[in-house]
């Protein structure tokens, strides 16, 4: 777990800043500071939280806000299945540990590869959770006084981060082919489906392995 935390240390400021950005956004969408912090602590998934808060802030209904968030988080079902066999212990323990799964903790711990390290996942996930929830609290309490953090290029930072996480996955040809196909599926679906669906649909790229598996 300590190793995981060390690996994630460079991401802590980014998680904190993104959390602050969410906190500010939540306040502008008429969320109380407590509601924003509780959401970060329990949902712990940036894009889904931003989406649901944005929908409410724009005057959309609760149903639309919930649907947007859950579609974005639907990818955690296939992501969880790739690491399912590493989880041990009681039901409560497994459910609790599963909450530390986010894209970054999963990928940094080698999720979906034979060298997946559950303890690294828990270390990375814990550290990012602290940054995310702490950042949310600061953003929600200070509000617009700290401005819009996305002006600093935070969104581009996360796009670059996913490039690095993806590069680490491209260890053999069939994985590169799956990545290329996943990217194509996502690009093709973005204009036609609600956000989140393109990411889940990209998992269909694994079927190219069916013939050779």
């Amino acid at each position, binding site marked *: 777990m300590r190793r995981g935390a060390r690996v994630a240390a460079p991401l802590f400021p980014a998680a904190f800043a993104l959390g602050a950005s969410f906190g500010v956004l939540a306040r502008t969408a008429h969320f109380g500071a407590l509601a924003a912090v509780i959401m970060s602590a*329990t949902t712990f998934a940036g894009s889904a939280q931003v989406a649901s808060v944005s929908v409410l802030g724009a005057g959309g209904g609760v149903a639309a*806000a919930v649907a947007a968030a859950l579609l974005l988080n639907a990818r*955690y*079902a296939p992501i969880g299945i790739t690491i399912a066999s590493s989880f041990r212990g009681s039901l409560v323990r497994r459910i609790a540990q599963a909450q530390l799964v986010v894209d970054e903790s999963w990928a940094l711990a080698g999720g979906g590869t034979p060298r997946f390290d559950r303890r690294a996942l828990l270390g990375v996930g814990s550290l990012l959770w602290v940054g995310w929830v702490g950042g949310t609290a600061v953003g929600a309490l200070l509000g617009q006084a700290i401005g819009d953090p996305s002006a600093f290029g935070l969104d581009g930072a996360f796009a670059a981060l996913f490039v690095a996480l993806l590069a680490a996955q491209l260890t053999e040809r069939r994985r590169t082919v799956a990545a290329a196909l996943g990217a194509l599926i996502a690009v093709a679906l*973005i204009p036609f489906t609600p956000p989140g669906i393109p990411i889940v649909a990209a998992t269909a790229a694994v079927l190219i392995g069916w013939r050779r598996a």
Partner: protein
Amino acid sequence: MSDAWTAVLIVGAGTVVLKSVGPVGVADRRLPARVDQLLELIAPAILAALVVTETFASGRSLVLDARLAGVAAGIVAVLFRAPLWAVVVAGAAATALVRLVS
């Protein structure tokens, strides 16, 4: 209950269920080797889709904006085998710079 709290509770509960599907529903069950080999391809496919959405998606539109500079800087940093923190900083700096001048 306010709309905000309703959303917090339902999204929170739904996400707990989604994140638990694998670790609770599939754990202990031995999957056929063939399925395991397919599951190994999920990570590259999902991460590639995340790169695409984080770079080009704006709601349901495909757009070219300052994030592209961040990704380009990230790719260069990765090619030079820069550590993760440097990739993130390069991505943020390039994106912010392009936003500043455009």
